[in-house]
Each structure stands twice: as structure tokens, then as C-alpha cells.
């Protein structure tokens, strides 16, 4: 395996700046890696080789010319990145992993993509996801499953399994994901990578195909905490095109990560959420979590127990609010203005029937389930009991967080209750699938930021540790996350991801 691809984004950026390697070399190395292993992983739905190499060449030329323009290059310029196929990109298809948008070419770029282009990060391509971001395993993609690089029979998490698998398998050092109920963090946990859901509004949603508008956020996916800090600083910021975008930019994320990496957590109060441990959490997950707590304590953190009693209603509230917004957000997919149009096989050709046939053919089962559920939750006579009640639970969960953050600066929990499960395990049990998000959902409901960092292995599969911080305090995540990362790597003597089984043409041939 080419050493270039083993580098973190920050490390690669340093080498690019030092002139030790060119961006074209770096991008080519990653394209070669994708060619080698993605047949087995299926992390990528589209590879953007030509444009990526062109951007890389452009960056190399600027650097070679030196002068003011070279000085002005973004720190991550020339570092390749993969984009979750839920974020619209001009020049590459955006499918949301759905048949509905097969081959759809957006006429506009998402705001985060505009920033990526301005900073000149070459985009390697679009990564796989659960269709319209609905799922926890990427098994609901219309374009095949993505496999976990740690074990090809296991799920990479979802909905952002593609981005996580790409980063975990060294196909890309950086990626973008979206997180509505854990879709960045849970894949991060089960693939041994880092993923962050920023404070709601910290990153513009303009151009992220909406799933649940009051819950969605775009966020960074990487192998190190520092990389995610750089990436969030790049993609974050106020956007006049997004009315829910925070007025003030969040700052100091990289600085916080660097500070945290010293491993000194004196003065930090870390709250263990009682309701997010114990029953329902696999033994190995719980064990890794407890060990991490010990490490944090040894580093000077004060560990306290906090209780968030309303968290037990979080899953229910989420599975009411989210499908309700989904049912409305996905109404636009009707075969009129864009996307697939399917005609009914028999009977009169009316627009009503064409819409119904289009949506029947274009959406997968999970999407249909959630649309119907959401339509139900909003319908006349049911609103108060379902959607209305869920919005009240949201208030209670925010209050629980407020109370908890009185006692602690960050909260901590296992990111997911289990390690990566087998592909196909939850095929017939949607409800069981939903339980994967119990620990991640509360943050989306409240709008607070969360990060997952690799916490060790159980059954040879990664376990993730989640930190949560108050709204706007994303920096605290980077400090705590970087500290735990440093402490664990010191204890292990290496990073967790370096322990992932080697995947290359040889091992793939062996599996086949």
C-alpha cells in the first residue's frame, strides 16, 4: 500500500507545502487505491478522476509559482476529499443513493462544495449512503451495499457508510458526511474513524438534500481529530442562503484539537450519561468505554455521572419528527421537474398516477416506510399525539442537556450500542435497525454538537466513544476528542486504524 495514502490530511498537507510531494501524486495515489479496493468495498458511487487531477494540477502550479498566491493557499489545498452523495455537486451526479435521482446532474453547488472548490481540495468522488440518508447500515442504498473495511461481511454503519469506509480504507484522507440521527458518528464508530456532527447551523445546509431539516447537519469525516477540526473550520460559517445558519462562525476548533492533543484534561468535567450506558450496550463496547473513562480521569478530567431521564423518549421523538419532515421534504420527487419519471403500466395517464408510479418505482422500502409514517404523524387527528408530542419531547431533551451541562463541560457515551453487525442481520426488522441510533439521536434533537473517536476494539471490530458539548461549544469536542485520541494511541503505541486488516488486491482475491 502506497505510503501517501496512509497519511492524515494534515500530514499530507504539510508534505505538499514542503514540496515533498505533489497534489497530483497524492490524488493519483488515492485514485489507484480506489481502483484497487473499491470493487470489494463499493464506497464510491462515482469517481471524479479527471476533475480531481485537474484541481490537483492547478494547486501544484500555484505552489510551484510561489509568491502571494501560493502563500494564500488554504492549509488543506491539494488534499483530496470524498463527498457523501447527498450533497449536490456540479459536474458530478448526485443520486442520494436512490433510483429516483439516477444520473441527476445538479445545476448548482452546495455551499460547502463552493468552499471546497475555493480552497482547492480535489474531490475524489461521491460516496455511498443509505438511500436519502435513511438507515444505519448503508444497506438501503439503491446501488449496492458498502462493506466495512474491518470485515467485509459487516456493515460500515449508516447512513454515511460510504464516506466512513472510504476514509477507513485509505481511499481518501478526508470526507464529508451528513448527520441527522447519527449518520456521521455511528459509521465513524463502527469503522474506527473520526466523525463530527457540528452544532445545528454551524455548517450551511444549502445543497444538502434535505432529509429532516431541523436535524440535518453536514460534518467532517477523517482518521484523526485534528483533520476534522481543519475540515469543519473550512466548511463551517454563516451562509445567507441558509436561514438556520448561525450568525457567527465558530472559531478555535483547530486550536482546541492541538491543545487537547497534549493529553492534559485538568479542569475538564466529563459527564457520563446514565441513560446511555448499561443495558442495550454490548459488553465489549461498554468495556472499551469504561477504559476510556479511566484514561480521561488519569489525564486530569473530573468524571461525574449525569442523568438525562427524557432520553428514553428520544428515539420515539426522533422517529416522529424525522419522518414527518421527510414526508414533506421528499414530496418534491415526483417526476415533474427532475429525476426519474415512471409511467403507470396500465390505466389512464394522469399526472397523479404518474407521480404515484414514479415514487413507487424510485423510492426503496425504507424511504417509503418513513414517508408513510411521517404522513401519518402529521395527519389530521394525529398531529397532537404524534408530531406535536414529539416536539415537546424535544424541549424536554434540551432541558436535560441544559441541566447536564450545568454539571459537566462535555458529556460522554459510547457512540453506538454495538460493534458493526453482519450485513443482512436487520433486513426484516426495521425497528431493531433504529436502535443503533439511541446514543446519537439526542444530540440532533437538541442541536448540540457531537464527535466520535475510535475507542478500541471488541470482537476485532472498532468501538466508538462519543463526546457531546453544548451548542456553539464545538471546540470542547475537539479538545476532549483529541485528548482521548492521544491518550489511547499512546497506550496502544499506534493508531487504531493502523490495525485494520490490510485490504488490497491480494486479500480481495483471497476472499473471492
Amino acid at each position, binding site marked *: 500500500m502506497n505510503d501517501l495514502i496512509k497519511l492524515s490530511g494534515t500530514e499530507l498537507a504539510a508534505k505538499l507545502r514542503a514540496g515533498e510531494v505533489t497534489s497530483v501524486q497524492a490524488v493519483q495515489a488515492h485514485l489507484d487505491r480506489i481502483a484497487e479496493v473499491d470493487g470489494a468495498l463499493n464506497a464510491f458511487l462515482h469517481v471524479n478522476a479527471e476533475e480531481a487531477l485537474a484541481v490537483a494540477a492547478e494547486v501544484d502550479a500555484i505552489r510551484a509559482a510561489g509568491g502571494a498566491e501560493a502563500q494564500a493557499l488554504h492549509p488543506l489545498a491539494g488534499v483530496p476529499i470524498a463527498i457523501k452523495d447527498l450533497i449536490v455537486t456540479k459536474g458530478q451526479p448526485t443520486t442520494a443513493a436512490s433510483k429516483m435521482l439516477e444520473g*441527476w*446532474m445538479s*445545476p448548482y453547488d452546495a455551499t460547502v462544495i463552493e468552499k471546497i472548490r475555493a480552497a482547492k481540495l480535489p474531490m475524489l468522488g461521491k460516496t455511498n449512503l443509505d438511500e436519502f440518508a435513511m438507515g444505519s447500515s448503508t444497506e438501503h442504498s439503491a446501488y449496492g451495499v458498502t462493506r466495512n473495511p474491518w470485515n467485509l461481511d459487516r456493515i460500515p454503519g449508516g447512513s454515511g457508510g460510504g464516506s466512513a469506509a472510504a476514509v477507513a480504507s485509505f481511499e481518501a484522507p478526508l470526507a464529508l458526511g451528513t448527520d441527522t440521527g447519527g449518520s456521521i458518528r455511528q459509521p465513524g464508530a463502527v469503522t474506527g474513524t473520526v466523525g463530527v456532527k457540528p452544532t*445545528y*447551523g454551524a455548517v450551511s445546509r444549502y445543497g444538502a438534500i434535505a432529509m429532516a431539516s*431541523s*436535524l440535518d447537519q453536514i460534518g467532517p469525516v477523517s482518521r484523526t481529530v485534528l483533520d476534522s477540526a481543519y475540515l469543519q473550520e473550512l466548511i463551517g460559517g454563516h451562509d445567507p442562503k441558509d*436561514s*438556520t445558519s*448561525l450568525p457567527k462562525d465558530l472559531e478555535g476548533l483547530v486550536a482546541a484539537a492541538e491543545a487537547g492533543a497534549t493529553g492534559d484534561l485538568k479542569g475538564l468535567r466529563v459527564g457520563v450519561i446514565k441513560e446511555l450506558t448499561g443495558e442495550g450496550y454490548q459488553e465489549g463496547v461498554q468495556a472499551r468505554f469504561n477504559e476510556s473513562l479511566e484514561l480521561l480521569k488519569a489525564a486530569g478530567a473530573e468524571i461525574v455521572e449525569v442523568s438525562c431521564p*427524557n432520553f428514553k*423518549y428520544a*428515539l*420515539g*421523538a426522533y*422517529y*416522529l419528527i424525522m419522518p414527518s419532515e421527510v414526508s414533506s421534504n421528499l*414530496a418534491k420527487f415526483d*417526476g*415533474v*421537474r*427532475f*429525476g*426519474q419519471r415512471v409511467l403507470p403500466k396500465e390505466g*389512464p*395517464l*394522469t*399526472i*397523479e*398516477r*404518474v407521480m404515484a408510479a414514479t*415514487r*413507487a418505482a424510485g423510492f426503496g422500502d425504507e424511504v*417509503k*416506510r418513513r*414517508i*408513510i*409514517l411521517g*404522513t*401519518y404523524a402529521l*395527519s389530521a387527528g394525529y398531529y397532537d*399525539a*404524534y408530531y*406535536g*408530542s*414529539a*416536539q*415537546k*419531547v*424535544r*424541549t*424536554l431533551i*434540551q432541558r436535560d442537556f441544559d441541566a447536564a451541562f450545568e454539571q459537566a463541560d462535555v458529556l460522554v457515551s459510547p457512540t453506538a450500542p454495538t460493534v458493526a453487525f453482519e450485513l443482512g442481520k436487520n433486513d426484516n426488522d*426495521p*425497528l431493531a435497525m*433504529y436502535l443503533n441510533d439511541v446514543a446519537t439521536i439526542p444530540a440532533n*434533537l*437538541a*442541536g448540540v454538537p457531537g464527535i466520535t473517536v475510535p475507542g478500541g476494539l471488541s470482537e476485532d471490530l472498532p468501538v466508538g466513544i462519543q463526546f457531546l458539548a453544548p*451548542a456553539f461549544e464545538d471546540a470542547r469536542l475537539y479538545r476532549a476528542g483529541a485528548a482521548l485520541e492521544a491518550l489511547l494511541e499512546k497506550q496502544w503505541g499506534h493508531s487504531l486504524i493502523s490495525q485494520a486488516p490490510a485490504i488490497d488486491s491480494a486479500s480481495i482475491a483471497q476472499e473471492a
Partner: protein
Amino acid sequence: MSAISREDVVHLAHLAHIEMSDAELDKMTGELDAIVGAIASVSEVASSDVPATSHPIPLTNVLREDTVGQTLSIDEVLLNAPDSDSDRFKVPAILDGE
């Protein structure tokens, strides 16, 4: 609170404009019934003195000046149209409504 019936699902599929076969309706009813049962507990704790939160971060008055921006070209507009004539989207006959 009653969990969801097949009749409900038929009606909802119609509202949501998703055509479903009988088999699909049966399956969906079973799945949704279980899900709705599991999430119904939210109404237990949602008493009348708890206000609803519709936006996680409380912002107000995000307003835009009344200045014209950039529009799409007609090619960009019709780029992905499933059916169109030279300048408008084409849809089959509309039956209900006016």
C-alpha cells in the same frame, strides 16, 4: 392510542402519492404497526405545560434584502426535465382539481 391499520396505510399511501401493491400494503402495515407502537410513548410525557420546540437553535428575523440575484438559464432549468417542450415542463393530464 390505536396502532396503525391497513385502511390507514391505504389512505396514507394515497396522500403521499406512492402507488403500492396489496402485498406491499400488507407488509407496510405490519412494519408500521410495530413502529408506531414503539414510539407512541412520547405522548405520555408531552404534557400541556411543555412548549413545543420546532427549531433547535433559537434564531429570529433572518431576512433578505429585496435585491434581484442570479437566475438559472433556461438550459439549466430544463437540464434534468423528464419531459419538456422548448421552454416549459410537460406533464400528463391533470384530473382532479382545477
